[in-house]
């Protein structure tokens, strides 16, 4: 129930902390994201804030999308829109820019993105199956093995782990740490890796505590 930001994954590098340790970081260019729509209990039945990211040409958007951006009073239309459920939206106005200063150094965050597509992958890669012996006359190297019992039940159970498409799905990595925020360059350095290829769109939100 808190505001996040949209960003573009730039790649990874390492930075040194006060102790001199090298910390692996992912560099994300996040924002500025203009507010494109404010949803309230009265108008939409729930409260949320919609923000846009990456200014673009009108040519790449559809007419409804251009109209939506015009309605928000944006000078340039935006390519990506994303909505964040909020408790209170009274402090926000249309067109107001959301920037990386909503995060601070050391804050714990969640990052969501589309993972790297691996195509059609076998059992070893997709579900971490064990492989068969590579030698001693074995012909069972990367085969999936038995996929169930025989006549009873006479079918394969739904959800059986099998080879298939891997990756290119939405993945959220929770509890990552912000190492440094650079507001003047719209950059945020996040400890460790985040989902997606370089250049892909990611959502950064404050860490959502689950349970307890």
């Amino acid at each position, binding site marked *: 129930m808190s505001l996040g930001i949209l960003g*573009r994954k*730039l*790649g990874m*590098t*390492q*930075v*040194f902390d006060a*102790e*001199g340790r*090298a910390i692996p970081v992912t*560099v994300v*260019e996040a924002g500025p994201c203009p507010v494109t729509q404010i949803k309230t209990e009265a108008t939409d039945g729930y409260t949320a804030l919609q923000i846009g990211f*990456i*200014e673009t040409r009108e040519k790449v958007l559809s007419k409804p999308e251009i109209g939506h951006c015009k309605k928000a009073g944006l000078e340039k239309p935006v390519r990506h829109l994303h909505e964040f459920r909020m408790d209170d939206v009274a402090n926000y106005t249309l067109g107001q820019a959301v920037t990386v200063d909503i995060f601070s150094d050391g804050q714990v965050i969640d990052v969501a993105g589309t993972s790297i597509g691996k195509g059609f992958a076998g059992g070893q890669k997709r579900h971490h199956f064990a492989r068969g012996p590579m030698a001693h006359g074995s012909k069972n190297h990367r085969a999936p093995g038995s996929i169930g019992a025989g006549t009873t039940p006479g079918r394969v159970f739904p959800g059986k782990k099998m080879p298939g498409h891997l990756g290119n799905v939405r993945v959220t990595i929770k509890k990552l740490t912000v190492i440094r925020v650079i507001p003047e*360059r*719209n*950059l945020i*350095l996040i400890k460790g890796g985040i989902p997606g290829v*370089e*250049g892909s769109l990611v959502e950064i939100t404050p860490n959502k505590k689950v349970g307890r």
Partner: protein
Amino acid sequence: MSSMNAQEIIRSLEAEQMKPVLPVLHIGDTVKVNVRIREGGKERTQSYEGTIISMQRSGINRTVTVRRVFQGIGVERVFLVHSPRVESMTVTRLGRVRRAKLYYLRDRIGKATRVKQKIVRKST
């Protein structure tokens, strides 16, 4: 959106962290490395001297592997040259070698582990 591309942004971030001056290091050189180490809450500098047998990666990720034989046991340490923990590196002897990785030194003992010294004559 900034006008810089992703690689330029990352390189500029790395540039802030990199040491402005580094000694010119070559494979086979003997170097003395002063390393800051923490012992029971206190910090002190330890020096370590040996032969560079390998250099890997570039930019901020540059590492050198320094080998020495200490009490008959081969010791190899990998230093991240831009790390603040590596206080200073000084070349004490230039080596003349013909390959990029001196892993063959691991199989040698005694006098055979020596690397030929490179004699540099001043030009003109």
